[in-house]
């Protein structure tokens, strides 16, 4: 790599420079950029993040588009590797003249891609939880995904609610997992828990026997765990073998709510453990609201995403992307412009409670209300939203469990305020 990307990077830069200012107004289709890994080891994550865009754009088009312009999703492959992500995003920003909003921007590449989008003055909703953006002053930055540290607190809080006092912390040394550690470690003493062991393990090793032996010897009552599917499967299988066939329950992140994780772990230690003893903790939303009904119905009837609909419907990041697209689209309607600097300020107004505002749950209703001169308040899948001064909003947290067919259901909710109080 590295030097090989020079030509690509240089070409992207040249094109970027050449195309600057080459864009103009009009009503051609509005493009929504989805920055996510579409190739490489995390390609599945890309599908989870692009599905809500497909659903939202379908609904927006059905409602007559944004100011008459139809909407399309543009996949921008960040490959999970910053060195590839930067040229790819730069190229997309430069060559797609109608890129008007961006979503995705996951944690592995966010730190390098977000400055690019910000500089291009395109508003974006990010699905990453990096603590780096808790107090960002970026004008076009918007986030409705909880920071990783808050996620870590939620792990501890859920374990505590279930009555576990002696957790073992076992995290794979990868970027996603490590972000949760500070919050987790801060919250445990406040919740009266003692981590009996705290280990970082390498991914995809042939054997974890000696590590497992240490964890077994510490006699934890719960595993607070995070690892890729293969590592998790190997670790758990060896745990079960060395612990007389039994395994303590596990609290892990909703990142693991994937078919890959379910299949790998179920094959290694059996479906029963996976469905009965694994809690997947992450951002919460209520699945009985009208907004969710629209979201779920469209998701299940869209051919391209039907197959993974049930997984997507149970986790937070896609829902926040769906809401984010609707919010930006309504802000465009409100500002009567698709230009970033023009509609960015309206994003707060679309969601904030104001007297006389009509509460709407989807784009179609919102558009109608705006067209008839009313002000609106969008309450979407993840519920009512209020952004703080850093354009961040952290909602509530939920624990999910797998169903025997690999889908999942919610088993409990933790309020955002609760989680914040243990963060210190």
């Amino acid at each position, binding site marked *: *790599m*590295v*030097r*090989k*990307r*020079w*030509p*690509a*990077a*240089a070409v992207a*830069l*040249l094109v*970027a*420079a050449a195309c*600057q200012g080459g864009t103009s107004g009009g009503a051609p289709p509005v493009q929504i950029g989805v920055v996510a890994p579409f*190739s*490489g080891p995390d*390609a*599945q994550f890309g*599908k989870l993040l692009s599905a809500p865009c497909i659903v939202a754009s379908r609904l927006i088009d059905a409602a007559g588009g944004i100011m008459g312009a139809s909407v399309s999703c543009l996949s921008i492959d960040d490959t*999970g*590797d*910053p*060195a590839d*992500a*930067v*040229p790819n995003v*730069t190229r997309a920003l430069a060559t797609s003249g109608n890129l008007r909003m961006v979503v995705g921007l996951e944690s*592995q*590449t966010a*730190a*390098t891609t977000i*400055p690019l989008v910000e*500089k291009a003055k395109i508003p974006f909703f990010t699905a990453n939880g*990096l*603590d*780096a953006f808790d*107090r960002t002053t970026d004008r076009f930055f918007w986030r409705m995904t909880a920071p990783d540290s808050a996620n870590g607190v939620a792990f501890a809080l859920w374990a505590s609610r279930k009555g576990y006092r002696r957790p073992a912390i076992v995290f794979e*040394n*990868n*970027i996603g997992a*490590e*972000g949760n550690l500070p919050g987790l470690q801060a919250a445990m003493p406040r919740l009266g828990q003692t981590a009996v062991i705290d280990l*970082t393990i*390498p991914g995809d090793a042939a054997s974890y026997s000696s590590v497992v032996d240490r964890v077994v010897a510490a006699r934890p009552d719960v595993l607070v765990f995070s690892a890729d599917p293969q590592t998790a499967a190997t670790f758990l299988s060896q745990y079960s073998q060395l612990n007389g066939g039994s395994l303590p329950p596990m609290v892990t992140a909703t990142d693991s709510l994937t078919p890959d994780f379910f299949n790998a772990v179920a094959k290694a230690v059996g479906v029963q453990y996976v469905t009965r003893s694994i809690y997947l903790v992450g951002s919460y939303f209520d699945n009985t609201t009208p907004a969710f009904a629209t979201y779920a119905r469209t998701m299940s009837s869209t051919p391209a995403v039907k197959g993974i609909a049930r997984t997507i419907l149970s986790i937070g990041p896609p829902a926040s992307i769906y809401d984010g697209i609707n919010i930006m689209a309504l802000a465009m309607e409100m500002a009567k412009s698709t230009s970033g600097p023009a509609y960015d300020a309206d994003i707060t107004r679309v969601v904030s409670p104001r007297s006389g505002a009509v509460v709407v749950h989807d784009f179609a209703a919102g558009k109608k209300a705006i067209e008839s001169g009313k002000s609106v308040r969008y309450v979407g899948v993840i519920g009512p939203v209020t952004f703080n001064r850093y354009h961040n909003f952290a909602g509530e947290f939920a624990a999910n469990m797998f169903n025997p067919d690999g889908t999942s259901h919610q088993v409990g909710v933790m309020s955002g305020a609760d989680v914040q109080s243990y963060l210190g």
Partner: protein
Amino acid sequence: MWGLNLQFGVGGVANLAYVVVVAAGAYTYAVLTLGPPAASGGFQHYVLGLRLPFPVALASAGLAGGVTGVLIGVTGLKRLRQDYQAMVMLVVSLMAGTVVAADTGLFNGNAGLSLIPNPISGVSGMTSGWPYVGIVAACCLIGFVVLRRFTTGPMGRALRAVRDDETAAAAIGKDVVRLRLVVQAAGGVFAGLSGALLVAFIGGWSPAAWAPVETLALLTAVIVGGMGSDAGATVGTLVVTVLLLQGVQFLPEIRSHPGLKEALGWMTLGAVTIAFIWVRPQGIVPERRPRHGREAPPTHVGRIEPLPPPASRPGAGGEAILEVERLVRRFGGVAAVDGASFTVRRGSITGLIGPNGAGKSTALSVISGFLEPGGGAVRFDGADVTGRPAHELARRGLVRTFQLAREFRGLTTLENLLVAAPGQRGEGAPGVLAGRRYWGGQERELVARARGLLAMFGMADREDEPARNLSGGQKRALEVMRALMTRPRLLLLDEPMAGLSPRLAERLEEVLLQLQRQGLSVLLVEHELDVVDRLCEQVVVMAQGRVISTGRMAELRTRREVQDAYVLG
């Protein structure tokens, strides 16, 4: 890219750890330009954080790359086989990756560093990418010019010689260790700079960005383009990145197999690499060797130029230029040389004969510094040189040839001779930096001298031929000529007549006698006893590692122990 070509193609050091060097440059740049960890949000942990300006950080990154290159180079210097070296490099890069990823305090572990300042982002009003493209282009241009100087001059020639045959390079007085470290350092500086420029552009750097598998793409680029050719490196990069890595992006997505496209890309990359090694190992743009113009006609045709003045210590060592005392060399339990003692008189041609396995070649290797002696002493020109390295001995004037010709395959016949000349101005740092102006004059003299030698052996018409294309006899002759180019005072010849055409052999005999008259001393290992008879006043006979007899050939033929040795041996 050029950095790797310099190391891999020219230097022959399979630096699979190349990415580590790039990474070192990138990390150095990152931690130097970033502010203190706490000031930048406290979410990433790393050392330093000095907020240095761009040029300083860039230079430091180059320096860090150079140092890392040398460090890695030192581990590769044990004279291991190339494939073992490659493995060491691979493991070094894996280990560096693991350690950096696991140690969160150093460079923020697996999460990597982000928000690394871009040199132009702070400058107001510069929103387009042009200025950065300009900076990169300028760096590339400077880099290319320096690289050209490095690879095209005498320095590059010496490096290529080391790549083609380390042993033979040592035999003509090249300090192989020093040359290799120079390559590593120079390649490292390039790699470090490229790492810094890259990281400044992408703004982030994490272990995922420098997986060793990426090096394969780089290696493929070098192999496809042509090893040791600057233009080839550029062509290779274009082919590999544009056609293979980016090309597969345009294939239609097959929904049932999401990873298929990428898999096909990698498979193609592998197949292309194998195909090139199989069909066209020299690459698309093969390494081209320079032709020398007619500006320097051969001097002294048919005559050997005078030898350098005799030793600075007049009279030192007296009669004998070489004294070998009770020399021992064992392989396992077998003593190949078992206490041999003999001398070579100044200005004489001394023969060394004996049956197969008598230890003649081994003795030659120990004397010339290619094998460590197991005991005994070697004095050259009065100084004790026991166990000194080969290149040092060669510089003192003790030069050997090999039983099997060891030409520098990739160099032309003429270059094979030029590279052997001692004290070349173009081989030092000033020569590389100042370019042809600095060494051009000396080069012309050397070309003239080399052409004189070629003319003498009737090989003037082959001077631009790559040495690998010469006939066996011509290679042997080249070997002797190359040794003569070093201006030796004592020449150790290991069966120089074997494989020579009668005409060349006759010519060689004449040359040797002529040189002897000018003061050259020769130790000649030879099977053709008639040749020995004609050339040597004194002959040493070895058998089973010992000297069994010494004298004139005519006397020796009559001695019982000599006859026995040949019959029994």
